[in-house]
């Protein structure tokens, strides 16, 4: 197994910091899983190109959640020395994938409304701050 360093983007760090503030248990799970990922003990599933999310085929997703409910995704890509983490967020309405696509400048124009809808979804509102 190859040991890599973690290289979270600033936006991904902000994602995790938000989790620390609002769901500390889940945040600890995310960091733990990132450690497993960096050590090669788990791997994610390759993403693909889609009309909704654009081309994320160079990235992978990994499920994470609590109480057996994989509510969140870690989206990352692998470099020879690092795990570049692009986002950690809710799968609800495809939010995390839409966020990654926008952060990478790959979001199809027609998906912008889907991104806004996902950011304002009732489920996110119920959780308080849009996690």
């Amino acid at each position, binding site marked *: 197994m190859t040991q890599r360093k973690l*290289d979270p983007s600033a936006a991904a760090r902000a994602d995790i910091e938000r989790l620390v503030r609002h769901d500390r248990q889940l945040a600890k799970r995310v960091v733990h899983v990132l450690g497993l990922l960096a050590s090669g003990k788990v*791997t994610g599933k390759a993403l693909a190109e889609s009309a909704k999310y654009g081309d994320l085929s160079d990235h992978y997703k990994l*499920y994470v959640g*609590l109480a*057996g409910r994989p509510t969140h995704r870690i989206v990352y890509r692998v470099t020879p020395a690092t795990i570049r983490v692009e986002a950690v967020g809710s799968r609800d309405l495809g939010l995390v994938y839409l966020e990654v696509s926008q952060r990478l400048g790959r979001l199809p124009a027609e998906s912008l409304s889907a991104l806004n809808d996902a950011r304002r979804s009732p489920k996110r509102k119920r959780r308080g701050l849009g996690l």
Partner: protein
Amino acid sequence: MEIVPEVLSIREARDGLSRLVADFNDGETKVRVIGAHRRPQAVLMSADVLQGLLQSLEDLEDLVAVMGDRDGGESMPMSVEELGLAVGLSADEVGALGQDTESFEVVGNCLDGAELGVASSR
């Protein structure tokens, strides 16, 4: 957004609190200002306004983070322990990562049909 400039006295706010809250239901009144001696001291706002403000704050945080990526650009590879501390976990929490769970399990074909995942009980 309509902001009612009138400053309600504390007594007016107290006596009319039910009506003030009900006024938010019309969707037009968003904020009421309250203060002793008609000096603005506090604000009563609809939950929708608060949610919108929080959403805007989150969007700004994301924007700042993305801009930071663009400006700085450089990677900052780190260990999981360094990441844990960087995002606000305590040293004790970082040291105990993974100890709150019995085991990890592979989650198959869940939600969006993917084959691999990691989850466990709280």
